[in-house]
């Protein structure tokens, strides 16, 4: 009897027990699809987080004052920011943007007013460093900063609140009693967390200091590294210069400022996302296990009937090897087919958003899920058959 014929025997065996075959396949299908989809959801949410962080700019470093340590003043000043622009001491720094920000500055236009969540005073390099491009109009120039001109670029939310249906460019608004001319509108930005990233306005540093914040300390300094790979080098150059300026004792652990970069933020966030994916994967693995138990159950229920059948086949002269081959082919056909359908179901399911997340399939999860399901199918399908094939025909026939 050749292999092809054994396959035909197996197919006949499967079609003779359609309901059992269908149920077994369904169990495998659900297990495989669940594993692939849940892992894809975890992966998708992790990618969504990292995308959002990357949107913040992966090659920027933010320096903020902590107000502690150091022997003299702990404030960040415009001079320090200027000192960071030093091709000798800080070759990996592309641009430096000193930032002052005023929270809840009220902007008024023709009687209607709006409290801008963050009113930023900075230099033109800020737009690219913070990946906040101007959508319409133009950014202000270095000259505007030097002259302290009162021009402002507003965020989408501000534009919509104050100028519904009107082009805000070249309109004049009042902020802190001073008139500002709107020169541009920021491109729409996706928000992280609860703050509306579009509820903002950006004006030259000097103008904001004059009108809103006064000439005190800077809120932060945004440093743009030459490339994402140079972030670490730029960060150490920045801290060397700042330590010098702020008279920080190198041996004392605490500095009066804090340096943050997007990649370190990304790392912690990715860790959280990985934990989430692992958790989902565990849930999925459990569902695969439950699917496996279902298969075992179905196989065990039919073991009596199949054992009798094996007894008959042996009595008619089927050698053990042939019986085993037939039943293993049956089991693998079921699990391979069920697994393939499961993969198909998962691929279709991943086209839709699940709990607000666009699933991103992890290729290795497909291999893993299909591998495990085939192993389960072969083991639990093959084991009872192997046992029955070892029985004497008469014992197999009497099996109950």
């Amino acid at each position, binding site marked *: *009897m050749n292999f092809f014929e054994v396959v035909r025997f197996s197919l006949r065996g499967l079609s*003779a027990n359609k309901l059992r075959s269908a149920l077994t396949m369904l169990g495998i299908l659900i297990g495989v699809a669940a594993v692939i989809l849940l892992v894809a959801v975890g992966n998708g949410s992790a990618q969504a987080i990292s995308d959002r962080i990357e949107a913040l700019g992966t090659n920027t470093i933010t320096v903020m004052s902590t107000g502690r340590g150091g022997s003299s003043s702990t404030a960040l000043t415009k001079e320090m920011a200027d000192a960071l622009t030093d091709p000798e001491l800080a070759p990996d720094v592309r641009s430096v943007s000193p930032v002052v920000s005023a929270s809840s500055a009220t902007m008024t236009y023709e009687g209607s007013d709006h409290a801008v969540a963050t009113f930023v005073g900075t230099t033109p390099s800020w737009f690219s460093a913070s990946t906040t491009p101007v959508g319409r109009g133009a950014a202000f120039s270095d000259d505007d900063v030097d002259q302290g001109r009162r021009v402002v670029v507003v965020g989408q939310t501000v534009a919509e609140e104050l100028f519904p249906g009107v082009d805000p460019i070249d309109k004049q608004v009042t902020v802190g009693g001073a008139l500002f001319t709107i020169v541009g509108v920021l491109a729409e930005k996706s928000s992280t967390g609860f703050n509306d990233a579009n509820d903002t306005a950006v004006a030259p540093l000097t103008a904001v200091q004059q009108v809103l914040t006064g000439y005190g300390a800077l809120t932060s300094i945004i440093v743009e590294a030459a490339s994402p790979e140079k972030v670490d080098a730029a960060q150490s150059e920045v801290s060397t210069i700042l330590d010098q300026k702020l008279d920080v004792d190198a041996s004392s652990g605490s500095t009066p400022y804090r340096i943050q970069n997007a990649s370190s933020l990304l790392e912690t966030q990715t860790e959280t996302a990985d934990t989430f994916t692992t958790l989902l994967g565990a849930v999925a693995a459990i569902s695969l296990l439950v699917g496996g138990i279902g298969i075992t159950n179905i196989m065990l229920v039919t073991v009596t009937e199949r054992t009798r059948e094996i007894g*008959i086949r042996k009595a008619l*002269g089927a050698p053990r090897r042939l019986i085993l081959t037939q039943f293993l082919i049956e089991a693998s056909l079921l699990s391979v087919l069920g697994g393939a359908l499961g993969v198909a179901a998962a691929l279709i399911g991943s086209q839709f958003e699940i709990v607000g997340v666009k699933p991103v399939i992890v290729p290795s999860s497909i291999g893993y899920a299909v591998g495990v399901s085939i192993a389960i199918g072969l083991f639990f399908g093959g084991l009872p058959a192997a046992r029955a094939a070892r029985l*004497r*025909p008469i014992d197999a026939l009497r099996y109950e």
Partner: protein
Amino acid sequence: MTRPVLQVTGLTKIYGQGEATVHALRGVSAVVHRGDYVAIMGSSGSGKSTLMNILGALDIPTSGRYLLDGVDVSRLSDGQLALARNRLIGFIFQSFNLIPRTSAVANVELPLAYAGVRPGQRRRRAMEALDVVGLAGRADHEPNQLSGGQQQRVAVARALVTEPALLLADEPTGNLDSKSTDDVLQVFDDLSTAGRTIVIITHEDEVGARAKRLIRLVDGSIVTDQRQSPIHLPPVGAAIAHQSVADAGGHIRARRPDAGPAPVHTVGGRHPQ
């Protein structure tokens, strides 16, 4: 004389343990030569099926020796046993044992498939065997669509289809009416005439009377073993049957005596395909 087809010495079979012990066979010894046609009779529970299962190499005795075609069955490997069951022995179960949800013709084909016969030839021979038992019209029916007697005849066809040298039949006519019984017995007579060895279990005296030799079993022991007709001549039933065959226009299905001696297969021997 050549070596016997079957030779059992001191066969015992004990089922269960302790209180529930059943001595199904208590030292059975017998020799069956090639071409013999043996009927085994005895009351229910006397150990007939137990003996038959051992002869068919489906079960093993608790003690005693069993030589099949001169070979000690207890020494055969799984593969050799499979070969013997497939090529040498045709076994008819008391309880039919057809494979469920599988058509009659597929059931009959099964032993041929295990013998390596090609599908086309397999189907043809299976249909012939079904025709012999008068069930050609029911070839595509599954066992649960057949009556008890029809299932029994499918089981007979399945045992005959490989043209085994040794036919072991456990009450093959137990569920049949007298017409079907006659048909099946005539097939047996023809096989016997062709030189095949037959062992048949029966409750019916007229069935036992047609055999060449009658063994009576009581409580797991042989009480009588008598020869009813010579081993080298056709069985008594054959003559009567031939007359009726001639009358009926000759519906001869099994190999005829004038077709020469049938090929007799031995354990480990190759089937002449």
